C-alpha cells in the first residue's frame, strides 16, 4: 500500500513534469517555425523568380526600350526613369525631412502643438500610398497643372509619401546625440544654430543618411501613386526635363504582368523584377554600409 502510493506520487509528478516540458519544447519549435515561415516563403519565391529570369536578364534587356515582342523588350527607359525619380525625391525629402526633425528635436517645446505635429507625422506614415497618389492627382496635376505623369509630379507625390519616414528616422538620429555635447558647445559660447550645425548634425548624419536611403529604397518600389497621377504605361525614351513623362520600373512590371503571354509572365517580368530587386538591394546595402562604418567608428 505504502509502497504503491510512494511509487504513484513521483510517477504522477514526473508525468506532469514531462507533459509541461514537452509542451514547452513543442511551443519553442512552433514559435521558431512561425518565425521562419515568412522568411522561407520569400526565399522560395525569390529563388523562383531568379531561376525564371535566367536567359532573359541580359545586356539587351537592360539597354532596350519596351517592345510588344518579348524577345526584344527591354527596361531601359523605366530604369533611367526610376533613377532620375529617386534623385529628385532625395533632393526634396532630405532638406525637408532633416529640417522638420531639427525643429521637432532641437527647437520645439513640449507643448500641445508639438505633440499634435508628432501624432500627425505618425499618422501620415500610415496613410495608404494610393491615397498619396490621389493627393498628387488632385493637387499637382489638377490644381497646379504640372501635367499627367511627369517626372516633377511623380517626384513631389512620392516625396510627400516618404517624408514622414525620413522625419521619424532623422529625429531618432538627432535624439541619439548625447546632450553633454550640446552643453559643451553652449559652454564654448556657441549659439543654438552653431551648435546644431557644428555638433549635432555631424554626429547625427550617419543615422540620418541611413534612414533617408532606406526610405529611398521604399520609394523606388512605389507603384500605386504613379498609376494614380497618370504615369504612362509605356515610355520609349529617357526623361530629359522635369516635365517629361516618365516610366519607372514598378510601373513597367505592373504593365507587363498584365500581358497574357508566358514569355512575358515567366520571362520578361521575372527579369524586370530581378532588376528592380537588385537596384533595391543595392540602395539598402549602401544604407547598411553607412550604418556599419558609423558603428565601428563609435566603438573605437
Amino acid at each position: 500500500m505504502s509502497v504503491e502510493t510512494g511509487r504513484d506520487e513521483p510517477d504522477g509528478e514526473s508525468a506532469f513534469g514531462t507533459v509541461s516540458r514537452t509542451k514547452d519544447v513543442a511551443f519553442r519549435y512552433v514559435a521558431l517555425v512561425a518565425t521562419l515561415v515568412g522568411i522561407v516563403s520569400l526565399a522560395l519565391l525569390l529563388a523562383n523568380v531568379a531561376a525564371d529570369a535566367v536567359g532573359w536578364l541580359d545586356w539587351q534587356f537592360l539597354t532596350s526600350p519596351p517592345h510588344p515582342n518579348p524577345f526584344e523588350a527591354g527596361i531601359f527607359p523605366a530604369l533611367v526613369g526610376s533613377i532620375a525619380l529617386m534623385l529628385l525625391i532625395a533632393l526634396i525629402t532630405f532638406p525637408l525631412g532633416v529640417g522638420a526633425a531639427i525643429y521637432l528635436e532641437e527647437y520645439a517645446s513640449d507643448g500641445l502643438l508639438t505633440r499634435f505635429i508628432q501624432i500627425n507625422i505618425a499618422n501620415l506614415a500610415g496613410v495608404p500610398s494610393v491615397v498619396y497618389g490621389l493627393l498628387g492627382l488632385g493637387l499637382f496635376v489638377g490644381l497646379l497643372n504640372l501635367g499627367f505623369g511627369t517626372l516633377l509630379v511623380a517626384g513631389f507625390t512620392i516625396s510627400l509619401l516618404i517624408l514622414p519616414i525620413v522625419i521619424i528616422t532623422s529625429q531618432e538620429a538627432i535624439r541619439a546625440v548625447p546632450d553633454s555635447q550640446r552643453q559643451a558647445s553652449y559652454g564654448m559660447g556657441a549659439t543654438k544654430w552653431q551648435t546644431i550645425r557644428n555638433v549635432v548634425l555631424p554626429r547625427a548624419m550617419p543615422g540620418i543618411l541611413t534612414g533617408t536611403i532606406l526610405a529611398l529604397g521604399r520609394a523606388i518600389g512605389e507603384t500605386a501613386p504613379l498609376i494614380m497621377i497618370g504615369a504612362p504605361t509605356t515610355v520609349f525614351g529617357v526623361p530629359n526635363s522635369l516635365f517629361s513623362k516618365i516610366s519607372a520600373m514598378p510601373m513597367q512590371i505592373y504593365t507587363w504582368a498584365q500581358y497574357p503571354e508566358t514569355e512575358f509572365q515567366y520571362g520578361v517580368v521575372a527579369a524586370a523584377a530581378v532588376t528592380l530587386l537588385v537596384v533595391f538591394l543595392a540602395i539598402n546595402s549602401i544604407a547598411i554600409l553607412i550604418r556599419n562604418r558609423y558603428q565601428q567608428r563609435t566603438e573605437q
Partner: protein
Amino acid sequence: MSTTDLSRDGVRSARGTAMRILFALCAFLSILTTVAIVLTLLLDAVDFFAAVSPLEFLTGTKWSPTNEPVAFGVLPLISGTLIVTFGSAAIALPIGLLTAIYLSEYASDRRRAYLKPALEVLASVPTVIYGYFALVYVTPVLDTFLPLSTFNALSASIMVGIMIIPMVSSISEDAMSAVPDSLRQASYGLGATKFTVSTSVVVPAALSGIFSSFILALSRAIGETMIVAIAAGQTPRMVDLTDPAGLFLDSIQTMTAAMVQIGASDVVGQSTAYKGLFAVGLTLFVITFAMNLVSEWVASRYREVYR
C-alpha cells in the same frame, strides 16, 4: 569693440531666428500635407456626392463606375477589402505573434540579430513584386489542389499576410521586451515553464502593444494596393456568406484595386467615375486614419504603464 561684438551677435541671432523659422516651416509641412490630402479628397468627393447621393454610395450593392448602367455602391468594394483583410489577418496575426514571442522570449541575442533584419525585409519588398509572385507562383501551386480562378482573393491574402508579418512581430516584440523582468522571475520562482511564462505572463502584460500592432497591420492590409490589384482581380462583388468556399477562391475587387482600375483607365477629369475615385479614396483614408489613431492610442497605454 563691444558694439561690433553686439552686432556680430545680432547677425548670429538673426540667422538663428531665420533657421528656426525655416525648420518650423518644414515641420508644419506635415500638417499642410494632411490638410491637402483631406481637401483634395473632399473637393472632388463633394462634387461626386452632388451627382450620387451619399446614401446610394454607402448602401448600394453594385459597383460599376464605367460600364452602363453605371452604379456607385461602395459595399462590394468594402466587402472585397474585408475578405483580403480577414484572410491576411488569419495568416499574419498568429504567425506574427508567435514570431514576437520567439524573438522576445526564446531566441538568443545572436539569433535575434539576424532574424529581425531578415523579417524586416518582408515588409520592404516592393509590393508590385509581391503581386507578381502571387499571380505567377502562388496561384498555380494552389490551383493544383483547389478550384481557383486565375485571379482570386486567396493568393492575394496570403501575400498581403506575409508582407504584414513584420508589422505585427516587431511592434509586439517591443511591447514584450518592455515587460519588466521581475514579472518573469516571479513566475519562474513559482516553477513555471517558459511556455507558461510566455503565454500567461508576458503576452497578457504586453496586450495593449500587441493589439496596437494588430490594428496597425490590419490598417496596412486594408490600404495595400498593388498585390490585390494584380492578383485578386477586378470583380466587385458582395460577400456571399452562403458560399464560404467561393469567398477566397474567386476574383474580388478591393477599394484600392478599384481606385487603380479607374486611375489606369482614361476617364476624363469631370466624369462621375473620376470623382468617384476620390469618394472611394476618402472612404479608405477615413478608415485607415481612424485605425492608425486607435493603434497609436492603444500603444501609448502600454508605454505609460512600464515607464
